[in-house]
C-alpha cells in the first residue's frame, strides 16, 4: 500500500518521470482490484439452506433451553403488603418506625428442589441503575484503607459528623436490610451467605482490611447497618448489593440453602420487614429457586429459540415452494421496473 500511494502521488511530480523511466502502474492483483474473492449471492438454494440450518440448530437449542428452564423449581412469595399489619395506613411511617416488623409465613414446596437452593430477594420499581445512584460510590475507598477520604463521588452520603463514611455513597447507604430465616418441621434451614458474591469483587474490589466506619450515622438512616469488625471483603450482602442491577426489577442473592427440599414440604419463613420500598411503591418478593445449566427459570430464551427456529423452518418451506412452483426467470421485464422512470427525463 505504501509503495502504491507513493507512486500515485509521484505522478504529480514532474521530476518523478525523470527518476523512474516509466510511470506505468505496477500490476498486482491488489492494485488492480482483482484479488481472488468469494462472491456469495443469495441464491434460493443458499437461502433455503441457511434457513434450514438455523432451524435445525435453533429448535433443539430451544427445546433444551425450555426443558432446562422448566426443570427449575421456583417459589416466589410477595410480601411487601402481607407483612404490614392490616391496621397500618401509613406504610412508610410504619416501616420507618422502630416497631417490631417480624413477619411469619410459610411456603409450600410444590416440587422437589435439589440443593443448592438459592434464596433471592426481589425488588421492584427500584432504580439501582439511576445515574446518581450508580455513581454514588467510591471504589478506591472500598478497596484501600488509605483512601478512606476519597469520598467525592459519594455525596450526600460522603461524611457524617465530619468524618468520612466507609463505605460511602448512596448504594451502600441504601443497603437492603430485610432478613429471612427458614425452618422446616421446626428445624432451622441454614442459609449459607458465603460465596454469594463475585469472587473478583471479594478479592479485588472490596478490601480485606477495610472496615465499615461511621456507617449509617448520618441524619437519615438508609438501609442496613454493617458490623464494623468484619472487613468489607467479607460483607457479602454489601458486595452483592453494590453490584448494581441493570433494570428496575431485580433479584439479589440472599443466600443458599444447601439441603434438598422435598415435594410437599412446608417452609416457615421468619422475616424482618425493615426495608422501605413503600415510599416508591416497590414490591418485595422472596424467591427460592434452583438453577439449571442455563441459570434460573426463564422460558423466554427457549421460546425465542423455538420461535426463530420455527420461523426459519417456515421460511425455508415457503422459499422451497416458491422455488418449485415459480422458478426464477431472468429477463422478465418486470424485474427491471427500476429502469422505467429514468431520472432526469
Amino acid at each position, binding site marked *: 500500500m505504501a509503495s502504491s*500511494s507513493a507512486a500515485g*502521488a509521484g505522478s*504529480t511530480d514532474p521530476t518523478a*518521470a525523470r527518476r523512474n523511466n*516509466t510511470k*506505468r*502502474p505496477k*500490476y498486482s492483483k491488489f*492494485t*488492480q*482490484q482483482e*484479488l*481472488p474473492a468469494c*462472491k456469495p*449471492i*443469495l*441464491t*434460493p438454494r443458499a*437461502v433455503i439452506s*441457511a434457513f434450514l440450518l*438455523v432451524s435445525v440448530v435453533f429448535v433443539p437449542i430451544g427445546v433444551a433451553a425450555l426443558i432446562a428452564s422448566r426443570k427449575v423449581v421456583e417459589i416466589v412469595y410477595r410480601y411487601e403488603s402481607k407483612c404490614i399489619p392490616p391496621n397500618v395506613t401509613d406504610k412508610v411511617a410504619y416501616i420507618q418506625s422502630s416497631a417490631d416488623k417480624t413477619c411469619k409465613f410459610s411456603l409450600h414446596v410444590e416440587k422437589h428442589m435439589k440443593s443448592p437452593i*438459592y434464596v433471592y430477594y426481589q425488588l421492584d420499581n427500584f432504580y439501582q*441503575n*439511576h445515574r*446518581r445512584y*450508580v455513581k454514588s460510590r467510591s*471504589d478506591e475507598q472500598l478497596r484501600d484503607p488509605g483512601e478512606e477520604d476519597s469520598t467525592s463521588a459519594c455525596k*450526600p452520603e460522603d461524611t457524617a459528623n465530619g468524618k468520612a463514611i466507609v463505605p460511602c455513597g*448512596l448504594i451502600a447507604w*441504601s443497603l437492603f436490610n430485610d432478613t429471612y430465616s427458614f425452618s422446616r418441621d421446626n428445624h432451622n434451614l441454614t442459609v449459607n451467605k458465603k460465596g454469594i458474591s463475585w469472587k*473478583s469483587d471479594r478479592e479485588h474490589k472490596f478490601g480485606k482490611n477495610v472496615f465499615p466506619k461511621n456507617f449509617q450515622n448520618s441524619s*437519615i438512616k*438508609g438501609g442496613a447497618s454493617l458490623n464494623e469488625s468484619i472487613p468489607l471483603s467479607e460483607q457479602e450482602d454489601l458486595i452483592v448489593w453494590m453490584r448494581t442491577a441493570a433494570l*428496575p*426489577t*431485580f*433479584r439479589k*442473592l440472599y443466600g443458599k440453602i444447601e439441603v434438598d427440599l422435598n415435594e410437599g414440604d412446608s417452609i416457615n419463613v421468619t422475616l424482618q420487614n425493615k426495608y422501605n420500598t413503600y*415510599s416508591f411503591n416497590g414490591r418485595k418478593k422472596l424467591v427460592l429457586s434452583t*438453577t439449571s445449566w*442455563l*441459570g*434460573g427459570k*426463564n422460558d423466554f*430464551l427457549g421460546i*425465542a*429459540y423455538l420461535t426463530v427456529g420455527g420461523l426459519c423452518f417456515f*421460511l425455508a418451506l415457503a*422459499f422451497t415452494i416458491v422455488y418449485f412452483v415459480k422458478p*426464477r426467470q*431472468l*429477463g422478465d*421485464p418486470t*424485474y427491471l421496473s*427500476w*429502469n422505467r*422512470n*429514468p*431520472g*432526469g427525463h
Partner: protein
Amino acid sequence: MAGGRRRRHHFSRIHAFTCGRASMREEHSLIGGPGFSRKVYCNDPERAMESLLSYGDNYVRTTKYTLATFIPKSLFEQFRRVANFYFLVCAVLSFFPVSPYSGVSNVVPLLVVVAATMVKEFIEDFRRKQQDIEMNNRKVKVHRGDGVFDISKWRDLKVGDVVRVEKDEFFPADLILLASNYDDAICYVETMNLDGETNLKLKQALEGSSMLQEDSNYQNFRAVITCEDPNANLYTFVGSLDLEDQQYPLAPQQLLLRDSKLRNTDFIYGVVIFTGHDTKVMQNATDPPSKRSKIEKRMDKIIYCLFVVLILISFIGSIFFGLMTDDDLENGRMKRWYLRPDNTEIYYDPNSPVVAAILHFLTALMLYGYLIPISLYVSIEIVKVLQSIFINQDVHMYYAETDKPAHARTSNLNEELGQVDTILSDKTGTLTCNSMEFIKCSIAGVAYGRGATEVERALSRRQETPFSQEFKERISESKPSIKGFNFKDERIMNGNWAKEPNANVIQNFLRLLAVCHTAIPEIDEETGKVSYEAESPDEAAFVIAARELGFEFYERTHTTISLRELDPMSGNKIERSYKLLNILEFSSARKRMSVIVRDEEGKLLLLSKGADSVMFERIAKNGREFEEYTKQHISEYADSGLRTLILAYRELNEEEYNQFNKEFTEAKNLVSADQEQIVERIIQSIEKDLILLGATAVEDKLQDGVPECIDKLAQAGIKLWVLTGDKMETAINIGFACSLLRQGMKQIIISSDTPETKSLEKMEDKSAAEVIAIACCINFDGTLLIFQAIKSSVIRQLREAKTLLTTSDENFEALALIIDGKSLTYALEDDVKDSFLELAIGCASVICCRSSPKQKALVTRLVKMRTGSTTLAIGDGANDVGMLQEADIGIGISGVEGMQAVMSSDIAIAQFRYLERLLLVHGHWCYRRISSMICYFFYKNIAFGFTLFFFELYASFSGQAAYNDWFLSLYNVFFTSLPVIALGVFDQDVSSKHCLRFPLLYQEGIQNILFSWKRIIGWALNGVVTSAIIFFFCIRTMEHQAFRKGGQVVGLEVLGATMYTCVVWVVNCQMALSISYFTYIQHIFIWGSIIFWYIFLLAYGAIDPSFSTTAYKVFIEALAPAPSFWFITLLILIASLLPYFVYASIQMRFFPMYHQMIQWIRKDGQTSDPEYCDMVRQRSIRHTTVGTTARLEASKRLEASKRLEISVHSSASKRIELSNFAASKRSEGNSEDR
C-alpha cells in the same frame, strides 16, 4: 564566450504585429504613483540588502501550513465541521458532572479521529514541502560582481540581481530581459506552465541593453527599474528602465515570467524584478474551487436528520426525567429515598425539575451522541484517498505513449463519477488527438489524396458491407509513417506532379504551403532532417506536406525564407530563397493569413491561405477558374470531417506594394484607438483579387477508441454534449465520426446564418465581420436591429424545434441539436435558456459549435443548475478551464495542449477512451462503495445508539449509559471501523468486466438508487429494529433470574457487556451479509473486529479494577462460563439479522436490482449464453439513441423497412446476417468465459 557560434539574426519583423507596439503609453505616466511604486536597483550589491528587506527573497512556499501554524490551523480546519465541533463540545462537557461518562474515555476517540486527519494533512503538506524544496534549490547563474557569474540557488535570488539563464532552463523569478545571444536581443519562451499554450512566444529586450551580451559587460552595469507593484495579470506590465541617464519604457515584451522556459535561445541575461510570491505566476496561483459530491451533500443532510433525532429523543428523555425527578419529593416526603432527593445537586433536584431537565438534556445529547458517527468523516476521507490510489494505479488507464497514468487530483469526487448524467466534452484534443494530418488536397480543381479518413474508417467498420474491397485495402495501407502527413497519391508524390496538366498551379500551390506560414525550422545537426516548430498543428502539417512533396523549407531569417525546391525541369533540388517582406498574421476574426514575399526573380507575391468563407470573396474574377470544382471538393472534405483551407495568391506590382507598405508601416506606428481597424482596412485593401490555387484538407484525427467509448457511454444512458470552438461543419463531421450523429437522425440546426439574418446583415454593414457586428451593436443603433432580429430568429427556431420534438416523441426518432456560438449567446439569455435547455435535453445529442470558453462554462452551469443532474466536463486546453471548474467533475486530458486543463481538473486522464473505464468501472464502484458505506455507518450507529436510548426507558432517563465508558468510546474507533473501510475500498458488486459489458448498470448511479432516501431510511429502520431486538431480547432473556448455574443474577455490567457483544456481532455480521465481495481483507477485518472485541474484553477486564471499573473480569468470571451468555449471543445475532436476510433474499429473488441480475448471470454461469446476456442488456426501457450500437440498430430498422417496402425477402442474406450475429455473440461470450 560563444561569440563565434552566435547567430546574428533580426527576427523582429517576422512578428511585425506584436513587436512594433512598444511605444510610450499612457500607463507609463502612472509609474511612481500608487500601484506602480516598485523601484529596482539593478546589479547594485550595496542596495541588495535593502531590496531584500523591502521585497523579500525568492523563496516560494506552496504548503498550506508551516511548522508553527500547522497545529492551530489544521485544528481550526477540523473543527469547522459541524459534527467535529459537536464532538469537541461534548469532549469539553464530558469533564463536567453533566457528563454521562468519564471525560478521558470520550476524548480519546476524538483525539484518534483528529490525529488521523492531521496526519493525512501533514503527509499531503509534506509532499508539497518537498516539491518546494526541490524548486527553491534549483540552480541559476547570478552575477556576483566584476563580471563573474556564479551558481546560486533560486531561493537566494534578490530583487535587482542579474541572472544568466541558459537554453531550456526555467526562469527563476520574473525577469526583465536585458540581452540574449541574438543581436537584436530576442528570445523564445515557452509558457506552457502558465497558460498551457505550446507555441513559443517571442520576447525582445530594449535596444539600450541589447549589447550586453557578455558576462564581462555586467561589471559596471547599473540601472534602475521603476515598475508596477506585483499583480496577477500575466499579460500586462508597465515600467521603465533608467539606463545611463536615459529612460526606456518597459512592456510585457521585456518581461520573462517565472516558470516559463527559455527555448531556441542559447542564453539570456535578465534582471530580477519580482521574487517569490511577488511573481506573476505565484500571484495567479489560486486554489481551484473545492467541489463536494452530491452524496456528501446528502450525507450532511442525513447528519442533520440524525441531529434532529438526537435532539428529539434527548428532549423526550428530558421531559420524562424532569417529571420523574419532580415526582421524587412530594411535600417533603421522599419517594425514591435511596436517591436522597432531599439533599442533591442541581442535576437531580426535584425542587427545580426544569433546570434538572435542561441539564439532563445536555447529558442526553452527549449520551445519544453515538447516533452520530464520529469517525464517519475521517473514514470517508481515508476511503476516498485509497480509492483514488486505485484509480491512479489502474493499468487499464495508463497511456504508454505519453507515459501517463490516470491521476485523481482530488479524491473528493470519486463517487460522483458514478452518477454522471451529462458529459460536456471539448472536441479538439479530447475527442480528437489534436494531431493534424495532411490528407487530401484539391489543386486546380483536381482532387488528390487517397488516404482514408477516420470517418470513412469508422463507417466501414460499422457498415460491414462488402462495399469496396479496394477501400479496405486503402485503409490497411494507410499507416502514416510521418507524423502529420498521411497523404498518398502517386500523381503528385515523388515529383510526379510535374507531369500533371496543371503543373505550374501545383508548383505554386506547394510553394505557397512552404512559404506562407510562421513556422520555424529546426535542423537536426546529425541527420540533417528538418523539423518544424509551429504555432498550430495545422500549420506544421502544411509545412511537412510541402517538405514531403518536394518543397523543403529549411531556413528562416528575418528577411528570408529558404526552400529546397524540386525543379520540374532537371528533377534536382535547388535552393531558393524568398525575401520576406510582410506577414499579415492570422487572427480568428480574419480567418486567413498572408505573406508578401519577393522571389528570386524579383516578383512580388502575396501568398494567402484562409477559410473558404472569407477567401472566395477575395478571389479575382479571372482567378475563379477552378472555383466550382474546388467548392465541390471542399464540401466533400468537410463531409468526411476534414479541415479545409483555401490557397490563393496574387502578384503585386512594385507601386502597389510600396503604397501598401507605406500605409501599413504608418498604421502600425499609429497611436489611436482605432488603429487596429485602420491596419485591418489596409490589409484588406491588398488581400483581394486573388487567384485560386486550390484547397487543402487536413484531418483532425479522432483519438483511439473514441467512437467505441461514446457508444458505451450512450448505452449507459449518459448524454454527451460536444462543446467546441470549431465551425459548424467540422463539428458536425466529428459528430458523425463518433456516431453522435447518424443518417436518419433529425438534425435541428439553430444557426444565426439563416438567410434572413444574413440579409439583415447585408443591409447593414456587409463588410464588417460578423463578430464585430455583434460586438458593436451597442454602439450603432442600426445594428441593434440585427441583434433583436437574430434573437427573435433564434427563439423562433427553438420554438419550431420544440414542436418537432413533441411530434418525434411518438415515432421514436432521435433528434440532434446543433447550435452555433452566436445563437448560443441568445439561447443562454435568461428568458430563453429554459426553453433551450428543454429542447437540448430532449435531443439525443447536442453539439454547440463556435462556442467561446465562457459559453462552454455557461452551458455547463445551465445544465448543472437547471437539471440538477451531475455534469462532467472533459477537455484538454486552456479554453476548457472554465467548463472544467464549473462542472461537477472536471476531467483534464493530459495531452499535448499543455497542463492548464489538467491543473484545473479534478481527475486527469490521458485519453478520452479511459473515460469509459473511469465512469463505468471506477465511478460505479466508488459510488456504490461510498453510498453503501454511509448507509452502513448510519445503520451501525443507530443500532448502537438506540440500545442506549432503550436502556434509558428502564433507567428513568437518568442518563446512565448501559455500557462501560470505554466500550462506548471505542465502538466507532475499533470494533466497527475497519470493516466499513474495507467495504468502502474493496467492495465490488460486479467485476470490472461485467461493469463494462452491462453499461446500463451505470444507471443505478444516475438514478441514485443506492443512495435514495428510501434506502437510507431502510437502513436506519434496520438499525432501529436491530437495536430493539438486541435490547429487548437481552433484557427478556436476562431478566431477574439467575443467569448461570451459580445462581448469580445479572448486574448492570453483565447486561452491558452482553448487549455490547451482541451489537458487535450483529453489526459486523450485517456487514458480512451485505457485502458481495469477500477477499481475505474483508475476512480479516470483519472476523478480526469481533475477535478483537473479545480480546479487548479480556485484556481490559484484566487491568486493575481502578481503571477497568465495571468491566473488571466481567468476561472471564461472569460471561464466559455462562452458557446462557453464548446462547443469548447466538439467538440475538440470528434474530437481528433475520429481517434483513429475509428482505434481501426476497428482493434478490423477486425484485433483483440490475447489479443483482448481473450477479445472477455470473452465478448461473450464463455469461457464456449470449441470448441470456443480451436479454439483460437490452432490457432497457430507455432507448439508446446515440453511439454505434444505436446507429447499427437504426440502419437495421431502416433496412427492414426498406425490405418491407420492396417486399422482397432474400432468405439467403438473412441467414448470413443471422449467422454473423450469432458468431459475433459467440465470440463475445467466449471472451467472457475466460
